């Protein structure tokens, strides 16, 4: 498995922490699935309720890698400032860099993304950019200092899966040594397995688990799918072909007609 800024993960399952029915279910989903990375965010804190402190206590107890995001940021300045705040609070150089450019699709503003990535990488951050499957943008992100790429499978929260398998396969082929993560849009475990079968190093998802009828069961299903896809990619899948090829040997077949 490729390393993420020098860190080898136990598996390629990165799971979000939002939208769960309760903190207890969130905790069970992580513990039973074995997801290796938890994405987190920053929001305004009340001096009375101090809700964030309780949440942070749960995440720390999980013992997983923490990947803070810049969700909801629409400008370079917003994203860079949020990243600095996240680095201090979470004590990690990792940052999932999101700079949103379109409100309907939550598509990243790739121009602002590249600029923010450069600023943060120069400042010592280890940037995980949430990007599209555009190869030119990907190349610019790498030149900006990113050592990981996270193309979307489909719009965030859509559950549509891998909208452009050709583009994702191209990205894998173009950047054979770069850790790649399909981030966003997955709805089913089979889609996660497909991403891993393409040779991706991890998948990152949230809604598909948190909004399932049984989030803990779905987290476990995704974990198995990620494992299956990883094993399949390692096992060198066969090349598909248009015509049939008999699998049962014809030599020795009885003459019965």
């Amino acid at each position: 498995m490729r390393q993420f800024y020098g860190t080898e993960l136990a598996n390629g399952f990165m799971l979000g922490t939002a939208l769960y029915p309760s903190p207890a279910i969130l905790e069970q989903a992580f513990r039973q699935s074995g997801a290796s990375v938890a994405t987190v965010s920053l929001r305004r804190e009340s001096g009375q309720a101090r809700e964030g402190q309780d949440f942070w206590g749960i995440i720390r107890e999980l013992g997983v890698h923490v990947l803070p995001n810049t969700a909801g940021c629409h400008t370079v300045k917003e994203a860079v400032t949020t990243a600095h705040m996240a680095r201090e609070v979470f004590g990690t150089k990792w940052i999932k860099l999101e700079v949103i450019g379109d409100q309907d699709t939550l598509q990243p503003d790739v121009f602002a993304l590249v600029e923010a990535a450069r600023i943060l990488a120069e400042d010592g951050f280890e940037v995980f950019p949430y990007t599209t499957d555009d190869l030119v943008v990907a190349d610019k992100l790498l030149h900006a200092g990113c050592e990981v790429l996270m193309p979307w499978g489909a719009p965030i929260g859509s559950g549509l899966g891998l909208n452009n398998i050709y583009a994702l396969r191209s990205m894998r082929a173009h950047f054979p040594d770069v850790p790649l993560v399909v981030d966003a849009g997955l709805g089913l475990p089979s889609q996660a397995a497909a991403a891993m079968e393409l040779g991706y190093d991890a998948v990152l998802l949230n809604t598909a688990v948190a909004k399932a009828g049984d989030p803990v069961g779905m987290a476990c299903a995704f974990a198995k799918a990620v494992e299956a896809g990883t094993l399949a990619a390692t096992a060198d899948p066969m090349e598909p072909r248009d015509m049939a090829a008999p699998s049962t040997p014809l030599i020795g077949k009885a003459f019965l007609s």
Partner: protein
Amino acid sequence: MLLNVNGEPTETDATTLADFLAKHGFEGAVVATAVNGAFVAKTARDNTQLAAGDQLEILAPMQGG
């Protein structure tokens, strides 16, 4: 003096950012701070003077995808 804290008008007699956090329920809390849109590191809070009308953002860990 009147500040804007996390989008809400807030009256305080605190003179520094560290003082504000101590007096408004954030003692010992894991938070990150910004004043007027600029990040203020934990180590700089003691020396960050507040002025009427300042916009404070006090952020804490939260669920995210």
